């Protein structure tokens, strides 16, 4: 039976890498993004359909749920990947920027997950995209709070939905992306030099971790955080 996976933030970047790998492994996909580009992404992947939605809005969340219900009936994998950044030093960070990041990265993921509770099949898996930054990062109090909150959500939900649904989180470190490529080369080189693995992460590194947690190979794993950072989280 074809497994159904919902991936948020699926238009590009990490979400696209996750979608590609899950498609390669036989999943039918529902890609959700507020960026129209998600339609092109879905077309390229062939086994995917797209829903353009803003998951901070209740009506859009209901629309995603209705689409999933009508198109597939149930869900095997939910990947809460959609996220934004609004970086600023804590002392000058605007309240609105704090709220916006928490809304998208944390509350929207919780809202969609709760909305899909009835559609998540027995034995299904939720994977929340946290970040190594949940341990602390410069100029990202909003992002750190949201990604740390997502770890709490993961643990709390894992305890409540076990054994029917597994809930885990992946916490990527520095990953090759338009954002990392926009850094001054000297800054980027300095960050990479502190990674024990000796290289920047690729989106596929993260996608493999997500695919593992989504699969039956991880059937005894719930409420956990898999950190994919090349060892950065334990380095001096």
């Amino acid at each position, binding site marked *: 039976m074809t497994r159904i996976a919902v991936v948020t933030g699926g238009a590009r970047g990490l979400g696209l890498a996750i979608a590609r790998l899950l498609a390669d492994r036989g999943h039918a996909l529902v890609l959700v993004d507020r960026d129209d580009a998600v339609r092109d992404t879905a077309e390229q992947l062939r086994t995917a359909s797209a829903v353009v939605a803003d998951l901070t809005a209740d009506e859009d969340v209901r629309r995603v749920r209705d689409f999933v219900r009508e198109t597939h009936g149930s869900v095997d994998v939910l990947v809460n990947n959609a996220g934004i950044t609004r970086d600023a030093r804590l002392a000058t960070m605007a309240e609105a920027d704090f709220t916006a990041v928490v809304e998208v990265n944390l509350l929207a993921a919780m809202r969609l997950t709760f909305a899909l509770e009835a559609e998540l099949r027995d034995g299904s898996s939720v994977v929340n995209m946290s970040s190594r930054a949940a341990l602390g990062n410069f100029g990202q*109090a909003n992002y750190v*709070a949201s990604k740390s909150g997502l770890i*709490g*959500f993961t643990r*709390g939900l894992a305890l409540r939905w076990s054994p029917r649904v597994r809930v885990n989180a992946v916490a990527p470190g520095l990953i090759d992306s338009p954002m990392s490529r926009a850094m001054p080369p000297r800054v980027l080189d300095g960050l990479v030099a502190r990674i024990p693995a000796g290289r920047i992460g690729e989106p596929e590194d993260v996608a493999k971790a997500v695919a593992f947690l989504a699969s039956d190979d991880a059937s005894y794993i719930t409420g956990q955080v898999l950190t994919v950072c090349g060892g950065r989280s334990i380095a001096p």
Partner: protein
Amino acid sequence: MRPVLIRPADPRSLDEVGDGLRAAFVTVRDAVAEGRPVVILVRAGDLLGHHSVYGAAYANGLAGIARAAGFEGARAGWQVNVVALPDEDAGDEEAIITAVRDLGLTGQVLTLGAGLAGKVIP
């Protein structure tokens, strides 16, 4: 200087999680600007999701704020920490808050009691 104390109420909805985190962020931002230490009190069990999903998201979000402040403000002398209290009586809270201030820590999550012994480090 007496620390600014954040003692969150138990959230019962997504809105309360968001509002609580926003309010805590503003309190921390304003406190460090004034050079005041901050102590955030949470229930230890909330860090691992023992009480409610909302409480878990909230408590860990608060820990994130403390860690971010610790990461960013250590050199400037900011002191923002989380104390995770046991579900049973924690003892003299005033003494705990004073002790945390006097230790000069920042960005830490200090778990009191034995309730989380043998569990994941929050």
